[in-house]
């Protein structure tokens, strides 16, 4: 995935809801439920708002005291996990 591309959510395969500060995602292909904690939920909401990886890094960099390389690595790991669970394409 290019860093400027927005991330495509696999809406067909998921149902989701934010409860308190966490997001719960049901993957319909396997009926499993996944929980995103508050930071993952923040990233998820940025993905939903069609932000690119670069934009997400920039936004989080402005909010947290973390360097961009670390953020990029963490976000890519998170996206990899979402992809493996068939939550994003």
């Amino acid at each position, binding site marked *: 995935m290019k860093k400027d591309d927005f991330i495509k959510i696999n*809406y*067909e*395969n*998921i*149902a*989701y*809801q*934010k*409860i*308190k500060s966490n997001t*719960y995602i*049901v993957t*319909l292909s396997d*009926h499993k*439920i*996944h*929980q995103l904690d508050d930071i993952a939920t923040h990233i998820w909401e940025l993905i939903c708002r069609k932000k690119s990886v670069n934009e997400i890094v920039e936004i989080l960099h402005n909010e947290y005291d973390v360097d961009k390389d670390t953020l990029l690595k963490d976000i890519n790991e998170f996206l990899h996990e979402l992809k493996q669970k068939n939550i994003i394409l």
Partner: protein
Amino acid sequence: MRVAQQLFNITFNECIPLDCIVELTSKCNLDCIHCYVVKSCDTLPTDFWKSVFLELRDIGCLYLTLTGGEIFLRNDIFEVISFARNLGFCVTLFTNGTLLDEEKIKTLKKLNIYELHISLYSLNEEEHNSVTGDKRSFRKTMKAIHLAVKNKLPLVIKTPLLKSNFPNYKGIVKFAKRLGVRYILDPLITPKSNHDLAPQKYRISVDNLIKFYSDGEIFVKEYLKANNNKENFICSAGRNLISISSNGLVYPCLQFPVVLGDLKKSKLKDILSDKNNLIRKLRNIQPERDFYYCYKMCSYREFCLRCIGIVYLENRSIYSSTSSCCQLARVRKEVYYKKKKGALPWETIYA
């Protein structure tokens, strides 16, 4: 703790309606002998349900079950389902299947619903049709079941256990297993939502209840015990579960038809607010105070799945200590000890 359990606990404690059962219509093309629905002419328009779904989404609902009557009698049913899916709901459908053809099943497949529950009363055509009152229903329902399997829909075969179909329930279990689909056998036939007890005459006998709960293919011993802590003695109704009737009334549960409010007049958020006396009363239930006998005294408590709705429908009060739930608890206890000790229990089961 498993995510699903954690989600349940949070929404239960915070009274967030995670689950909502929506009765889209009370109209039905069948006339099942045991049905709890009181038919009316109310069919609220598509836009009404869309605005309700938007409200549900805002207040934390994830699991949306659409039921009837027969939901596929609505001309706008696919628009309604599609709208719900686009909002991100996990959608389950309850149907008798008789109105489903291949085209509709394929459309459902594209909509990625969570589960499709089809009611099947027997594998014997005559027996099934005698429940539904329609001589053509069995063939139509079976066709829908096979189409759902062929198109890999997440099918659930649902069978209320009645006097007439009980002798053949194992056939349905085998059938479901052969198709590789989930099945639900339900021995608890509820009164009609207007307190009419007539459907209960179709309930299976105590002897058959014992046979049913003794069926090792379906129940393991541990399953027979209910959860015994206080939280589990209060049900989800009005906490993380709500229901909406076909005329827009909000209930804690479809089996517990106490009107909390009317969506034609009020917003859902206001109806479920603690400012609503009824909802406050419901959420303040304390088993040790309000269900004193059931919670503190009854020797079947460990096995009791006390359903506040059934208690209310049978007694017109939620506080009563007698209901058909007692009979189920007695049977579950007897079977549990039979399985545990391999001997007859010391207590007698009362019909």
